[in-house]
């Protein structure tokens, strides 16, 4: 049995969902993959829980981290520099201006030769190639499937299954909040602000929804995909961004009248995020919080992926897939 030690940095919704899935599936990981995943540290802003023998996740999920007997004031960077672990899981909310605090966490872990699995978009949207170089230099893996499309296996699909193909274009709906709002506007003929309020009540939109509505979240994903799938050398600032805030209910109605719908599309080959018209029978026309992505390639032609692009439990699927892949690839 291979024992893999994990450090979790950030214990919010995604961190907790990953911990829950680890508890739920630990038996099958041992049986089917021959891997025991042991969390040895959990870091939050105020301090950390550290137990090199393995933290009892079930217990910690039901209590305040600070009340755990292994709680200490050590900050994440200090923990990453001292703890003995194989993979760091980075789940902090990243600033798209600086990439921090996640960027520093990833750099410190990679410099120590620790593998990294992250759902944090900002560091990769800003410093994709620098981080990949750092990983290579230190003989570590950096995996980031959960940064784009939540549970949809997009990056790994291209890396592992479409090797024979040249990826010509990637385009689609990469933000579930915007898709929910635009779908509501089309289905119920309501104004954007009304649809937004409903999204907030359902916790689909944040209290400050600007990151989603202005297209920033989609643009960060476009930057990551442009680097990883199209081999471009770009950063977040290279993406042209127009969000959905100016879309009127009349524009939605006009589109409908002419057999189209309006969706916020991340157009990866054109490095562009903007509302676009798509045919009503286009497979990308999905509603609710779903994401839909079209990959155009030279041999396999068009591939459409549809799935849940957000949600902590759904995202934990991609995180754990990356953890298991990393574990298997570890010498």
């Amino acid at each position: 049995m291979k024992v893999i030690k994990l450090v979790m940095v950030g214990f919010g919704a995604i961190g907790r969902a990953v911990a829950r899935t680890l508890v739920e599936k630990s038996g099958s990981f041992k049986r089917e993959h021959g891997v025991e995943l042991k969390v040895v540290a959990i870091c939050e802003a105020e301090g950390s829980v550290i137990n090199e023998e393995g933290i009892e996740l079930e217990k910690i999920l039901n209590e305040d981290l600070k009340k755990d007997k292994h709680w200490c004031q050590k900050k994440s960077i200090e923990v990453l520099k001292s703890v003995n672990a194989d993979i760091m899981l980075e789940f902090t909310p990243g600033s798209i201006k600086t990439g921090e605090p996640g960027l520093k966490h990833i750099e410190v872990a990679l410099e120590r030769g620790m593998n990294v699995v992250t759902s944090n978009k900002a560091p990769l949207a800003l410093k994709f190639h620098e981080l990949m170089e750092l990983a290579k230099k230190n003989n570590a893996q950096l995996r980031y499937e959960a940064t784009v499309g939540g549970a949809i296996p997009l990056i790994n699909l291209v890396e592992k299954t479409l090797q024979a193909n040249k990826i010509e274009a990637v385009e689609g709906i990469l933000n579930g909040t915007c898709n929910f709002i635009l779908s509501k506007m089309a289905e119920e003929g309501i104004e954007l602000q009304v649809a937004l309020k409903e999204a907030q009540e359902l916790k689909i939109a944040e209290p400050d929804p600007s990151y989603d509505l202005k297209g920033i979240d989609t643009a960060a994903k476009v930057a990551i995909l442009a680097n990883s799938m199209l081999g471009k050398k770009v950063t977040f600032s290279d993406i042209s961004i127009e969000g959905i805030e100016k879309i009127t209910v009349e524009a939605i109605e006009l589109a409908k009248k002419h057999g189209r719908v309006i969706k916020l599309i991340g157009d990866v080959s054109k490095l562009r995020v903007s509302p676009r018209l798509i045919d009503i029978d286009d497979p990308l026309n999905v509603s609710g919080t779903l994401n839909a992505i079209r990959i155009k390639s030279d041999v396999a032609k068009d591939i459409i992926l549809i799935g849940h692009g957000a949600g902590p439990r759904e995202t934990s699927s991609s995180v754990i897939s990356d953890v298991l892949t990393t574990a298997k690839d570890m010498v």
Partner: protein
Amino acid sequence: MKVYMVLELEDVPGSLIRALEPISSHGGNIMSVFHSRGKKEEVDVQITFSVADESSLDLMKKSLEKRRIRVKRIELEGKRYYSKKTVAFILVGHVIDKNIQDTIDRINEIGLVSDVDVMMPDPSEKSSVWIKVDVDENKRDRVVSEVEKICKQKDFLFISSLG
């Protein structure tokens, strides 16, 4: 309407018949067929025929492409022929107030505005305008970049078609 077409065919038995079928089945009246064998595996075949209208010519072209026959050149009445494409988009803003005639004229310099559909909730509020443009295939990008320029100058939101 007189059409001159150059096709690239594989030099195998039956390929000329496969290429002529779509022309005759869409009402083409073949006037001449000329081909010369070179050293290549493909042969250029020059066909002159008459056709009733452009839509029949478009159908022929599509049918040839479906058969994976490469159409190298088409001339209609002596002029290079391009398939027509439709570009559809929606503009949101004070589209009417900010001289819609000028917007249409500028697009018409490249293609032809064939449909305009306006929704204006109130004269003081922003309008949403659906515009459809017929344009030669090779001028599609020019239409899009001209509309982008107009949107920047007049502060419109440009909702373009994907694909």
